[in-house]
């Protein structure tokens, strides 16, 4: 089976690519995406630093994948839903979730720190692919209720090997759910390369078996991502059913701060991907065409810096643990057994002189 070249609109040198079959997004949309990518990278670097300072327990970086993080959010309307994974914290923040709330999971103060209904962002999924059937369910419920909302569900290349990936795509296709499945293929599932996940020519090819369109796109080309994901979202909203989009990108940082990527990939490979940097590419395109002045670029960096400062300051505020929280949300009404256990914990604490 022939491997189609990924859709690209701007090449790694910042030059436009003709005849891709998709229209280049507007200058405004590209400028907005540029600012968002700069912010995304700064927040990602800040989060990494916060792990080293002991303010976060762990942080799975999306450095190098900023084009995917930004496009996934930019193509959605306010009523649409985003289903992120643990590596998509930046996308969660770009969707409008307060950064400190977004990092609650990785800080370890609770599992999910935001109200998923407020910005229509599902809790970040830590197990792989299990969020994909949830996304299908949300989409089907929206249709059942006569709403036109679309769901965009993120996963990585490793997650495509999970059974839930298969079941979710099959359900979505059979029931024509308004969902876009967006796979960020960053070449590695922790240490395991894509060649150990699949023998398919590409991940997008899997769509054929489900009877839905599958599109490969250059995952470091935000223009192409906006075009391809935007078309998939419109198709879903218009009742055309689901689409599988595979973005080919690369995780520049290790899996998390606890990982040693040198054990499984050569530095030379990382260097080659740095040369395909999504931000530099768009910056080159916009600058050479007079759409991005030095002043605007500097102001963008400054705004990102301010956001990083706010994040630092926010995470410096200690969170007081409330032991009663352990029991409050297991059920709508705690069981008699949970009330007994809560009383036991409160009693233990009070005997230690801690007021719960």
């Amino acid at each position, binding site marked *: 089976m022939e491997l189609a070249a990924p859709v690209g609109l701007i090449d790694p040198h910042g030059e436009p690519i003709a005849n891709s079959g998709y229209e280049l997004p507007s200058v405004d949309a590209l400028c907005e995406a540029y600012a968002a990518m700069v912010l995304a990278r700064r927040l990602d670097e800040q989060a990494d630093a916060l792990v080293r300072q002991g303010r976060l327990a762990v942080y799975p970086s999306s450095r190098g994948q900023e084009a995917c993080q930004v496009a996934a959010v930019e193509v959605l309307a306010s009523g649409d*839903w985003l289903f992120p994974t643990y590596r998509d914290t930046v996308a969660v923040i770009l969707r409008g979730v307060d950064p400190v709330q977004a990092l609650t999971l990785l800080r370890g103060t*609770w*599992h*999910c720190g*935001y*109200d*998923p*209904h407020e910005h229509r962002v*599902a*809790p970040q999924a830590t*197990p792989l692919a*299990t969020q*994909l*059937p*949830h*996304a*299908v*369910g*949300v*989409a*089907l*419920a*929206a249709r*059942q*209720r006569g709403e036109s909302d679309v769901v965009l569900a993120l996963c990585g290349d490793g997650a495509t090997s999970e*059974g*839930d990936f298969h*079941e*979710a795509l*099959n*359900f979505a296709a*059979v*029931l024509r759910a308004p969902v876009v499945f967006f796979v960020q293929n960053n070449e590695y599932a922790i240490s395991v390369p894509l060649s150990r996940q699949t023998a398919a020519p590409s991940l997008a090819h899997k769509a054929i078996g489900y009877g839905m369109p599958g599109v490969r796109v250059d995952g470091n080309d935000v223009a192409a991502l906006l075009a391809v994901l935007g078309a998939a979202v419109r198709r879903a909203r218009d009742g055309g059913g689901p689409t599988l989009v595979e973005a080919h990108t690369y995780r520049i940082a290790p899996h998390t701060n606890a990982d040693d990527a040198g054990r499984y990939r050569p530095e030379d490979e990382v260097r080659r991907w740095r040369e395909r940097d999504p931000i530099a590419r768009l910056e080159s395109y916009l600058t050479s065409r007079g759409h991005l002045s030095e002043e605007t670029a500097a102001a963008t960096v400054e705004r990102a810096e301010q956001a990083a400062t706010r994040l630092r300051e926010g995470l410096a505020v200690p969170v007081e643990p409330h032991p009663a*929280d352990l029991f*409050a*949300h*297991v*059920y*709508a009404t705690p*069981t*008699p*057994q949970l009330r007994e256990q809560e009383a036991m914990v409160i009693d233990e604490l009070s005997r230690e002189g801690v007021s719960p």
Partner: protein
Amino acid sequence: MTAMDREKITMAQALNRALHDALAADDSVVVFGEDVGTLGGVFRITDGLTATFGEDRCFDTPLAEAGIVGVAVGMAMNGLRPVVELQFDAFAYPAFEQIASHVAKMRNRTRGQVTLPLVIRIPYGGGIGGVEHHSDASEAYWAHTPGLHVVTPATVADAYGLLRAAIASPDPVIFLEPKRLYWSRDEVRLARPVPPIGTAVVRRDGKDATLIAYGPTVPVALQAAEVAAMEGRELQVVDLRSLVPFDDATVCAAVESTGRAVVVSEENGFAGVSAEIAARVSERCFHRLAAPVRRVTGLDIPYPPPHYESLHLPSVDRILDAVDGLQWEYS
């Protein structure tokens, strides 16, 4: 027929009526699973629902249990009240991760911002001569998982009432339907008040010892009490109805009134719900007990082929033997 009329129906019909009435009462209720549409379910529990309420409200899905439960999670996140059927106990296992990691945890991980009012119906247990993988008593897996309510009816009236309560619950409910009681028949008044989830009930009074049973073993325990009465021993029978939340108050009051207890359950006994019940009763009622709490359970073997299942399942004789062993000589 008025609401006050009594009708003689089967447990399967009572469950069907509960689904019908819930679909009629609330537009957000949806029913789906394998074969639940045109066929009406392999046990006919969803019979006629698609015809009455349409494909949007009761529909067949691809054959994929994790997908069924996962999609139900998403629907419940977005305003619906899904009631899904997983066709047989052992065929629910592919959905285990969705249930244990997502259904059970969503409320807690989001501090109550996302709740999942959904019901997972599982035809469960043995005694119907089913071949391999069709007879597991799987309640311990679900009861062990915080965040789930686990309910199992033993009577026709409770089948209706508990299923209505489960569908109305703000929390996810694992609804275990004892397969061998599907065809049990009783004269019932369905319009009676629905029993709240989490309440056990004393089915038969007796002063000598307490049999604690649930779901498929309640009729067996009642038969044992019948036989014991002929032999001059009065056995009390408690029907738990709900494994989670567990009704310690009713169970302890019952056991303390007799001073002797036997837990009767068809699951494998080791590390099972029956072990938890025996431990709870021992901890809470120790000073009122005249004998150690006994358990009559399924054997610790994979569910046997149909030709052997009578050796595996708790029988009247095995229950009465256990009762005989409750240290009567000391009383």
